[in-house]
């Protein structure tokens, strides 16, 4: 890509030139396009996912779920189910609540929640007298086989008294709306305020233009390729509960379940995850089934497995986004932004999921205003309950919503003021760094306009008019859509990473982070190889077991490379320093004379040298070491985030619209990203592309739909919930702008995982609306289905 380094095409060329396809010729350092070493396992069926693991004496669970969006449970008859063949246990609410468990916790300690507004009702693994969404667990049945469990679950008779339901977010806060938690007197979960309301109001009063946009960020379903699954185990002798989970935050899950739900010491619970087939945030959380399999294991004395069916995932895995927003932009006579006002209703679902309250608030204000100078910002959020599946974090979690608001609003401003969308962006980009955003964070560095111009050049912005004319000649309406996004790397702020020297001359990375397929096994090994010169194939990797790894922040908020990678770099640097001290002793040399290169410590000007593994054996076997020399090179490094880093970039989409059917054809798409230093361009580009495809899916195809009134889930399968497929998207060239290195972490990375899903939705919607502009269409909400576009053209 012109003007950028490490574009993936170039990266692939680099890999080929350097002989990465031939063993023995590889280069594995930081910045190399190393092919993911975990992929051989994944692609050949050798991965060990939750359902691949063997457990002796295993039983299987099935969940009886609510068929109603809102109903009182009048009776539960489990007689027939208990008598059914192969049934081992039936856990009813009576059994469950007799355990004395606490509710599933959710994060509500959020700066900005208006005092006195929080209504946080308890959420339990089984419904307590009332069901509040279709799919809510009511009874858990355990049997010898999965099919026997499913058959017995059908024999459970639950009597319901239906209650009026509300699934319409825009109206759930109305006074006459059915109450989901009546004791609170409204469906408000909490109010959140951030920023200077008076300053924003004053700016609007003095502004030449007020641009107003009402928009919906549509509800989507995460749908990782591997559905959720859990196996609970109980060791009666030690009293240890174990949860084997397809998850991505084993320590957080253990801590939350042990402290809040089971009320036991964290040491008496183990959470462990094998290979995980995608998580996107949704596998971070404490789910009812996670608790139920452990309780069932304790009650039956046998391991209990539950694996979600694909259709069951729509009813039992958190949904995401689902905001209704009014956004306003104050603009001066020259088209410069003066103030931004955002008023959002955010859907929490029927209750608060683990991080649900954080998404529209703490995870969203951080990037509000995007890549532009916006001197005043005020943000108001009303989090609301509806009779729907709880909503929680999904790839980007709050920052895609902020990016979508800003990038749509900028295009609406261009539309209203008659300014070209390219020009209005050029007039408003942040150009001086560090830039203090009005809501409190400071962007340390960036090259927003440079990244934007590189993307514009890559897609051939200058030739667009000609392409548009060619499309028109074919009866098509062509549009180009810009999205200059800002991301903020979040997640748990600290990490510990161990480099453990093994007796077989290998070193193992014990990671507190969690890869659900992102390529950590490769990228982390590159950091260790670069720092210590250890051969790539002698670097092992382990993650996801609270019994083997003392602490861990898991994955979330694009944190792993920034926090985990930086921690690992610190660990490796400590190993080097410990090694140096040991070499001084073992080689009997002065500290100043010790050189380190390619994994060897050498005494300058001599042929005395010792490798890291040899050194490890030497210190381990040495009887008496001076105080300056550690008895092992094994090291646990630590790092804590002090400042945020800001991945950013520009997505540009070009589409053709069939005006007779409303069908949108995505013709071309380019991505220019500033992720800071690139550790592995293949993996980084893969992250950018994967995220972008999810964002493209949200913009064009995906939308969770509940039927108004009944609250039934319309989109209960992949037939009705349309995920993007390979042929939905064209090639996605990715270029990296590395011109603005960050010093917010020792590795110099900004984070890459969520950027694609943050940048893509607005690029697509802006492109379609650009195509529809001649027809007077100013805004449409996602997903831009053919019928929606067709209807807009009919009315426009």
């Amino acid at each position: 890509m012109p003007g950028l380094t490490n574009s993936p095409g170039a990266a692939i060329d680099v890999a080929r030139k350097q002989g990465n396809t031939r063993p023995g010729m590889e280069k594995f350092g930081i910045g190399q396009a190393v092919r993911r070493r975990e992929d051989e396992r994944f692609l050949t069926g050798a991965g060990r996912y939750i359902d691949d693991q063997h457990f002796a004496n295993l039983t299987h669970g099935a969940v009886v779920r609510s068929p109603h969006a809102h109903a009182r449970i009048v009776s539960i008859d489990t007689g027939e189910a208990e008598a059914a063949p192969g049934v081992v246990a039936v856990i009813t609410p009576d059994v469950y609540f007799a355990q004395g468990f606490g509710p599933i916790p959710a994060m509500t300690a959020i700066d900005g929640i208006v005092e006195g507004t929080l209504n946080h009702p308890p959420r339990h693994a089984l419904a307590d007298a009332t069901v509040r969404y279709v799919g809510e667990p009511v009874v858990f049945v355990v049997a010898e086989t999965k099919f026997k469990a499913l058959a017995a679950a059908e024999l459970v008779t639950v009597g319901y008294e239906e209650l009026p339901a509300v699934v319409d977010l825009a109206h759930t806060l109305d006074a006459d709306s059915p109450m989901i938690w009546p004791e609170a007197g409204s469906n408000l979960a909490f109010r959140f305020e951030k920023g200077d309301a008076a300053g924003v109001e004053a700016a609007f009063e003095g502004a030449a233009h007020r641009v107003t946009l009402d928009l919906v960020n549509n509800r989507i379903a995460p749908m990782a390729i591997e559905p959720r699954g859990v196996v609970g185990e109980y060791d009666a002798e030690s009293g240890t509960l174990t949860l084997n989970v397809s998850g991505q935050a084993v320590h957080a899950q253990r801590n939350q379940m042990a402290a809040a739900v089971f009320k036991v010491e964290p040491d008496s619970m183990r959470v462990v995850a094998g290979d995980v087939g995608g998580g996107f945030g949704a596998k971070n959380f404490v789910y009812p089934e996670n608790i139920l399999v452990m309780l069932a294991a304790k009650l039956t004395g046998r391991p209990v497995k539950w694996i979600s069916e694909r259709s069951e995932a729509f009813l039992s895995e958190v949904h995401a986004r689902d905001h209704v927003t009014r956004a306003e932009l104050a603009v001066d006579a020259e088209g410069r932004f003066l103030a931004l006002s955002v008023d959002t209703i955010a859907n929490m679902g029927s209750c608060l999921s683990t991080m649900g309250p954080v998404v529209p608030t703490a995870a969203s204000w951080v990037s509000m205003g995007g890549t532009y100078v916006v001197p005043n910002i005020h943000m108001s959020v009303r989090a609301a309950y509806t009779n729907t599946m709880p909503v929680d974090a999904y790839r980007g979690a709050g920052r895609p919503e902020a990016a979508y608001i800003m990038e749509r609003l900028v295009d609406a401003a261009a539309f209203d003021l008659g300014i070209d969308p390219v020009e209005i962006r050029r007039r408003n980009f942040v150009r001086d760094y560090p830039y203090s955003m009005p809501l409190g964070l400071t962007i340390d560095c960036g090259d927003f306009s440079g990244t934007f111009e590189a993307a514009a050049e890559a897609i051939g912005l200058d030739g667009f008019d000609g392409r548009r004319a060619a499309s028109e000649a074919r009866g098509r309406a062509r549009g180009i859509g810009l999205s200059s996004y800002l991301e903020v790397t979040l997640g748990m702020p600290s990490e510990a990473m161990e480099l453990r020297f093994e007796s077989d001359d290998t070193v193992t990375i014990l990671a507190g982070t969690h890869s659900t397929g992102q390529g950590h096994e490769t990228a982390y090994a590159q950091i260790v190889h670069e720092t210590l010169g250890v051969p790539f194939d002698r670097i092992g990797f382990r993650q996801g077991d609270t019994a083997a790894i003392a602490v861990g922040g898991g994955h979330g908020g694009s944190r792993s490379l920034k926090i985990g990678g930086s921690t690992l770099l610190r660990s490796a640097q400590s190993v080097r320093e410990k090694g140096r001290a040991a070499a001084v002793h073992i080689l009997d040399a002065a500290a100043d004379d010790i050189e380190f290169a390619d994994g060897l410590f050498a005494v300058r000007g001599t042929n005395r040298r010792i490798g890291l593994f040899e050194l490890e054996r030497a210190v381990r076997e040495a009887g008496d070491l001076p105080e300056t020399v550690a008895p092992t090179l094994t090291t646990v490094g630590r790092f804590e985030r002090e400042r945020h880093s800001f991945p950013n970039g520009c997505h540009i989409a070009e589409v053709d619209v069939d005006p007779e059917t409303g069908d949108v054809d995505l013709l071309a798409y380019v991505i220019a990203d500033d992720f800071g230093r690139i550790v592995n361009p293949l993996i980084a580009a893969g992250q950018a592309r994967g995220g972008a495809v999810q964002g493209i899916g949200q913009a064009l195809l995906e939308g969770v739909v509940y039927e108004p009134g009944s609250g039934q889930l319309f989109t209960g399968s992949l037939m009705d919930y349309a995920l993007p497929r390979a042929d939905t998207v064209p090639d996605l060239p990715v270029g990296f702008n590395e011109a603005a290195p960050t010093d917010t972490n020792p590795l110099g990375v900004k984070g890459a995982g969520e950027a694609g899903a943050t940048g893509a939705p607005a690029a697509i919607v802006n492109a379609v609306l650009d195509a529809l502009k001649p027809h007077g269409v100013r805004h449409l909400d996602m997903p831009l289905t053919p019928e929606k576009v067709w209807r807009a053209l009919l009315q426009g």
Partner: protein
Amino acid sequence: MQYEAPQTLDAAVALLADARGAARVLAGGTDLLVQLRSGAIEPDLVVDIKRIDELKKITAEDGGYRIGAAVSGAELGEHEGVRALWPGVVEATELIGSTQVQGRATMAGNLCNASPAADSVPAMVAADATARIVGPDGVRDTSVRDVATGPGQTSLGRGEIVVSIFLPARPARSGDAYLRFIPRTEMDIAVVGAAVSVSLDDEGTCVAARVSLGAVAARVLLVDEGARVLIGTKLDDDALQALAAAASAACSPINDKRGTIEFRTDVAGVLARRAAQTAFERAKG
């Protein structure tokens, strides 16, 4: 559930005729197995017809082709003779499912599943294809139009099997085409399907036409008015507009998750028009 895979047609008919309780015929199984697994049907007997040799053949007959009921979409798509004579029927059949599904799915199965949105059926109707049916009372031929009587319902009697589809001979300068609309690019159920078959004279004027629509009524439609407005024209703008209007006028769709009445009605006209343009181009050669 009893599963039988007889090697002769007589044996298959006898099994079905003697069946107690619900019986189903299994050809490709791409609908049947999904219905079985989801619990939508619980037949007592399944008769697999893929072992019957005569149902696995494509045979030239009277200038047309007879397609056995167990011939898969992939096999049909590789038959150069059928592709040359009825390209629209072949492209419609090839739209069913995915590459993997194409290895199993059959035209006859698509017909007997009796979905109003079946992809191959409008193309077969436009081709004026005939279904050959064998049952306890012998052999009968019927228009493919008369096989489905409503969603999931057929006119087949007890023990009757559709054994082949006959695509007739046609004059030179003929062409057909099928288009469907789905919100995705593949692997979806038609929101609207439209098939057009035309024959032209030496001047390029349409002398015969058949227009068929899917997914816009309880059964696949044959739109006589659509054919009438094409005949005698060279497919000028007026004819195209009249065709679109006739197609839309013939629709009586429902509102459902896939599309509204208004959208389906309008897009039916658009697709009929575009299918006619392709059919004319193919007819001109």
